[in-house]
């Protein structure tokens, strides 16, 4: 039954996209309307990393990493404003720390 719910049978990304603006302070978008940062943080950073025959280390690609660093708001700046609670999330804190170090190196 639950399997046939309209929301669950539609392709990924489409249900909310077709719903139009949601009430209140909420905007909803399906993947077709997803912003580039949403897509990149998933397809570049989150899939299974497995060596193909073409050896590409995404971390070695200089411009790519510089541009993608833009995705991440400056950790320092956020902390200045007292926004640091995400550091208590282990999945993020390691990453935030890496980004921060990278940022310092750049700066």
């Amino acid at each position, binding site marked *: 039954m639950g399997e046939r719910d309209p929301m669950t049978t539609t392709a*990924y990304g489409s249900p909310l996209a077709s719903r139009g603006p949601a009430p209140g*302070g909420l905007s*909803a978008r399906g993947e077709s309307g997803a*912003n580039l940062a949403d897509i990149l943080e998933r397809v570049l950073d*989150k899939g299974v990393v497995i060596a193909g025959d*073409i050896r590409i280390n995404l971390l070695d690609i200089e411009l790519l*990493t510089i541009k993608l660093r833009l995705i991440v708001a400056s950790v320092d700046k956020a902390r200045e404003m007292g926004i640091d609670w995400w550091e208590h999330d282990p999945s993020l804190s390691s990453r935030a720390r890496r980004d921060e170090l990278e940022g310092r190196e750049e700066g």
Partner: protein
Amino acid sequence: MTEALRADGLQYAYAVVRDTGALDAALDGVHGVAGEPVRAVVHLGLAVVAGPVPAGEFDEGPLKERLEKLEWLERIARAHARVVDAAGADSGVVPVRLATVCRGEEGLRRMVETGRERFTEALDRLDGRVEWGVKVYAAAPPPAEPAAAPTAAVSGRDYLRRRRAERQASAERWGRSEDGARQVHEALCALAEQTRLHPPQDGRISGEADRNVLNAAYLLPRAESPAFAGRVEELARSSAGVRLELTGPWVPYSFVAPFSEDTAGAPDGGGGGPGADRPGRSGV
């Protein structure tokens, strides 16, 4: 048979699913990063979704060069995501990272052998799950009071006083949006099986003018999506001073790696302060 379809031609891999035999229908008419038709290559009970791509773009040299171009990267990132979505429309799917390219179907089969355990583990764990993304933005500040005309004589003291008041107002807004984000996250955690916090996004890539204070992903059974979306709508109505954005449902990208793997790259200890050793991986 075109040149790109030669047995040893390059194959771009998108995702791995269980071989149920139903995939070909889902992939019918779906085109990949090079505009190529994609199909399933079956091996060891799994199926890799892949498509032939031209060496002129996807061999090591040209690929590295092209990945430096944000426009090209955006195009293939969106195409990659579309194929992963199609592959996962009716079954569990585990995406592989962007720009995974093999030589021939033989190369794809080798990839399946190498990653077999990881693919199987993730397919089992994520079966029937979807990911929803929720972002919280600090609501735009109220329209600034008309600044004194630049020609008006403003004493240094007045100027500093005004700057101080502006800074205070800004800090208060931040404090409110931080509380709002925390409450939203706590409420949604209660509905999710797992959650991941991504770093806040920068407006230069996301195109958002408002400051992103929470960028979270929630994993839940697909059937619970309507309840989750409903809760997000409620929170959006009840949270003052912040704006919420809901994206999804996504293939559970953010949950492909088991949680422990997520943190393995940067061991704790050493304080992690500015003097800590530079980790071996960047955030990408």
